[in-house]
């Protein structure tokens, strides 16, 4: 009897888990679609910023900026993880990838700086006792805004220009399709204009207000912010896909366990009925 009750309770708990994971799976699916759409909308905007900067640099060969030149100061790594869990191996795979890179490139934690985006990344960096650029966790919300991360991106640029940090690399997970994502590292600083971007410049002779140097100075800041925003959108899309898969697996497992438990419950119920019948038969035989 007690066994039957226990199994019943486990079935109820598993059913509840199934319902929750099903709902989370559906939510992640819809968020993934929205995130993919945001990424699609943002790409031409990001390309426009790159085009304006490339055209500006192409307009004058002597035009240069410290953010375009390499630095020998200690490197800085930006880790973009999620704010919340229930996401399968998404964060752990990223952290392992980062640790493997650190192990092969540095001997001590003092040889580099770390900036984090996402609560999980912040907690990880704190636990590992890395030298963290941001004093508190930088949110990685579903509705990303520049406000969320511009403090840390401005600090990184300022530190780079003051030679406090050198080459800056971002570690994040990039979305390939709903089943696959890839962890990548992308260089943010010094700014490197790709060859294909160099061929995609505006042919119009623009006037720059108030002057080319001043516009370039502002453009560098915008370039960093817009690049980081694009990277965060990529990571967010990958996060939603990972959560969708994790919740699908959890949902399937919950269903399987529920079926097994129902079988177990039916066995226990049958055992109880058999025992009761034997008791009745034995009783009637005794009479």
């Amino acid at each position: 009897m007690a066994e039957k009750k226990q199994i019943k309770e486990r079935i109820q708990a598993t059913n509840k888990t199934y319902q929750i994971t099903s709902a989370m799976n559906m939510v992640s699916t819809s968020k993934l679609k929205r995130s993919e759409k945001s990424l699609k909308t943002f790409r031409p905007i990001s390309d426009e910023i790159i085009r304006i900067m490339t055209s500006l640099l192409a307009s004058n060969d002597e035009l240069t900026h410290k953010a375009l030149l390499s630095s020998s100061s200690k490197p800085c790594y930006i880790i973009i993880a999620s704010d919340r869990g229930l996401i399968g191996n998404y964060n752990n795979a990223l952290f392992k990838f980062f640790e493997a890179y650190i192990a092969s490139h540095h001997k001590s934690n003092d040889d580099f700086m770390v900036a984090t985006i996402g609560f999980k990344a912040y907690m990880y960096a704190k636990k590992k006792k890395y030298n963290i650029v941001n004093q508190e966790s930088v949110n990685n919300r579903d509705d990303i805004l520049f406000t969320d991360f511009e403090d840390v991106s401005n600090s990184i640029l300022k530190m780079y220009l003051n030679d406090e940090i050198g080459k800056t690399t971002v570690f994040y997970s990039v979305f390939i399709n709903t089943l696959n994502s890839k962890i990548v590292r992308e260089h943010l600083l010094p700014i490197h204009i790709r060859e294909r971007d160099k061929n995609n410049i505006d042919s119009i002779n623009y006037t720059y207000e108030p002057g080319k140097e001043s516009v370039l100075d502002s453009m560098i800041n915008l370039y960093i912010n817009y690049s980081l925003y694009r990277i965060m959108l990529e990571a967010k899309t990958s996060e939603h896909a990972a959560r969708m898969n994790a919740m699908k697996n959890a949902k399937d497992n919950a269903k399987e366990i529920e079926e097994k438990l129902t079988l177990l419950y039916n066995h226990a119920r049958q055992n109880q009925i058999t025992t009761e019948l034997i008791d009745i038969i034995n009783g009637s035989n005794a009479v």
Partner: protein
Amino acid sequence: MIELKIYTPKGIEHEEKYDSIVVYDQHSGSFGVLSGHIPVISTISNGYVCVKTGESEKFIAVKGAVFKMQNDEASIVSEEIAIGESSEDAMNKLKESYLRRLNENKERNVELALAENELKKQIKKSKAGHI
């Protein structure tokens, strides 16, 4: 007339034709453009654009933006925008939304830290590792 399109990460947020546009940046000052202006590019770290059609004028506060104009087609790529009846009104709206977001983020950080502690406590309590 100048056709102005304002893009934010959400897509095109504003699209209209105006007689003139004045671009104002807190750091680099201001300049105005009329129809037929030579191609121009400028950045607006923090500022606004004043757009006029006939007697009516509107102020659009922008942040982290690039203004570009050629052939009477102007575009602004901006992180965020806020439209107001005066420059102060538009700038205040943008500042308010910035501060609101910062407060939300602070509260969220506390919530996440509490949730993480609670989860750790519950996992320890359930002795999940001993099952």
